[in-house]
């Protein structure tokens, strides 16, 4: 049983709720056709984002993927700026240029997410290199999926991170699918991603990605090692995406995954697991948790209002910031 105190437990619950409620609201309102960009929801996978985000320090770095809402919020990214970005507004974290797949909040150490599978992995390693050069005790965290592991750039990046003992935490959310493709058509039978990565020379662990306290505990221990100069750590966290790969709906009707599989994962809802953990440990009451949810709901609503009411970028904005002026 991991050692999580009540404060952390409540923080985890709040973070999971926030990600869940923000994304549920996106899903609900996507049909209004005002969020006009591809959107990859992480509902079902929130425990990883919440636990890692809380385990990291604010000045630690993180980079992420197409499925980044959770990582961004978990790391402390600005919810309003994210919603405005998804709505294409000039108040968005990327002034409306990036959309859902390209999020950034440098104040929160969230250095960017992009839509090319594997594309930010070397960036996270490069951030690790910059930390080593600057001799601070920060850590760079790279979020990636099980599909990204298949990209050569993942392997090259791991090799370099291990070679230079860089302060990088790799967080691989193995949700069993890349779009509609199960692991079986992409990776060898009986492959354990974490074992393979161990072969590259990295310290690795597997854990239940739906159990936030477990992930938090693992992350804290890993971060200690990394800050100690022991080199990168790779976590393989098993979890499951509830909705379709891209877009707001459920897609179990498509038949690429079984109803049983879906149900078995849904039963292990990260939010419910977290809630039960808190209740069991008497870290809070049902009422406490309801209050948190309510406050999150109103925070999310505010963010949608902010996004809706924010202005669009105008024509002149199109050609700004193509180049940085500094030189």
């Amino acid at each position, binding site marked *: 049983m991991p050692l999580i105190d009540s404060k952390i437990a409540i923080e985890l619950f709040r973070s999971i709720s926030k990600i869940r409620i923000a994304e549920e609201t996106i899903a609900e309102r996507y049909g209004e056709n005002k969020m006009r960009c591809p959107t990859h929801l992480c509902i079902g996978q929130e425990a990883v984002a919440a636990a890692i985000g809380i385990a990291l320090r604010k000045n630690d770095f993180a980079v992420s993927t197409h499925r980044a809402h959770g990582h961004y919020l978990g790391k402390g990214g600005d919810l309003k700026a994210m919603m405005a970005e998804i709505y294409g507004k000039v108040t968005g974290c990327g002034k409306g240029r990036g959309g859902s*797949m390209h999020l950034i909040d440098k104040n929160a150490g969230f250095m960017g997410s992009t839509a090319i599978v594997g594309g930010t992995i070397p960036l996270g390693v490069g951030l690790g290199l910059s930390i080593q050069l600057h001799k601070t005790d920060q850590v760079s965290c790279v979020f990636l999926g099980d599909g990204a592991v298949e990209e050569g750039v993942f392997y090259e990046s791991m090799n370099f991170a291990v070679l230079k003992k860089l302060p990088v935490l790799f967080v691989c959310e193995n949700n069993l699918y890349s779009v509609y493709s199960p692991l079986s058509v992409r990776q060898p039978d009986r492959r354990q991603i974490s074992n393979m990565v161990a072969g590259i020379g990295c310290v690795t662990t597997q854990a239940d990605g739906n159990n936030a306290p477990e992930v938090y505990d693992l992350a804290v221990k890993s971060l200690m090692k990394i800050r100690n100069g022991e080199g990168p750590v790779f976590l393989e966290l098993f979890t499951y995406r509830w909705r379709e790969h891209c877009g707001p709906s459920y897609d179990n009707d498509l038949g690429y995954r079984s109803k049983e599989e879906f149900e078995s994962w849904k039963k292990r809802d990260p939010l419910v697991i977290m809630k039960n953990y808190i209740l069991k440990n008497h870290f809070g009451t049902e009422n406490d948790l309801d209050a948190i949810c309510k406050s999150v709901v109103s925070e999310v609503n505010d963010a949608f209002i902010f996004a809706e009411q924010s202005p669009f970028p105008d024509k002149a904005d199109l050609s700004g910031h193509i180049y940085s002026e500094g030189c």
Partner: protein
Amino acid sequence: MTRSISYAHAVNEALSQAMKQDKNVICYGLGIPDPKGVFGTSSGLQEQFGSERVFDMPTSENAMTGIAIGAALNGIRPVMTHQRLDFFLLAMDQLVNNAAKWHYMFGGASSIPITIRLILGMGWGQGPTHSQNLQSWFAHIPGLKVVMPTTPEDAKGLLLSSIFDDNPVVFLEHRWLHNQDGNVPENPSFRVPIGKAKILRAGTQITIAGMSYMNIEALRAIAYLQTLNISCELIDIRSFNPIDWNTIFNSVRKTGHLLVLDTGSETCSVAGEIIARVSMEVFSSLKAPPARLALPDIPTPTSFALTKYFYKNAKDIVAEVAKQLHFDLPHEIPELEKKCPHDVPGNWFKGPF
């Protein structure tokens, strides 16, 4: 027999007929056998031809391109598909250093009959990394063939030609064309030759050389211009390597005016190449400076509010023609207003991609 089918269906039919004609044709790519079948273009193929010849792949664009090349060295004709051209940037080494050069650098000893289907995105927030149109990159590389069909008929005919061509062919499909319908011959031996442009509309006053989805906008523009008694010749360039210079030159010789439309960014574009060659080769026929309409040299923005100014449409084409032929346009042209938001191919499109 000819019937009206969609562009996506035409691609699907070409794949299926090619696989029937030659058991060496194989077909793979991320999502090829999945329930969505890459916008329907690969639906049913795995059921028809089995999972040895039709398969999904790891997210390993570079190796999978090299694997296609290697298989091609032993008689296989792989058709590889990417849902976005942007992902294929990972494979430039294999495409350029191996596929394009293999036949030449070994003195003709081997050839590389591979077809790479790249789908181009646009609209609905595709944004900077899901919407690049890099046809000029491919056209710049000796040893590649490059085609970009506009009509369902050409989609089928050029895809069949690509698959049975003994050279590496980059086949560019614009996402906004997939749902366009058109007459397509059912005949499995139907082919459209690579390297020939097509005159989509004959005309006398200006040559418009267009490509892919921009031709759809051009057709709208031309229909309107006709009401003003302006006669445009629209050439679908179709093939970017080789380019059918004769058809373009002959048209300019006739009209004396040239406007080139490109779906990619302006600098070092295919449109620029066409303007350069026309200026070099039929200079004396030009009655006015040639013009081009391409994307500005800006990464693609995502916001609905920004893409509006980023992409070009029929109105911009009409304006360019008016400028070159020196006539005035009304301030508002309701005929040219799109019936749906500018970032979707039709009202039926509701995202997410």
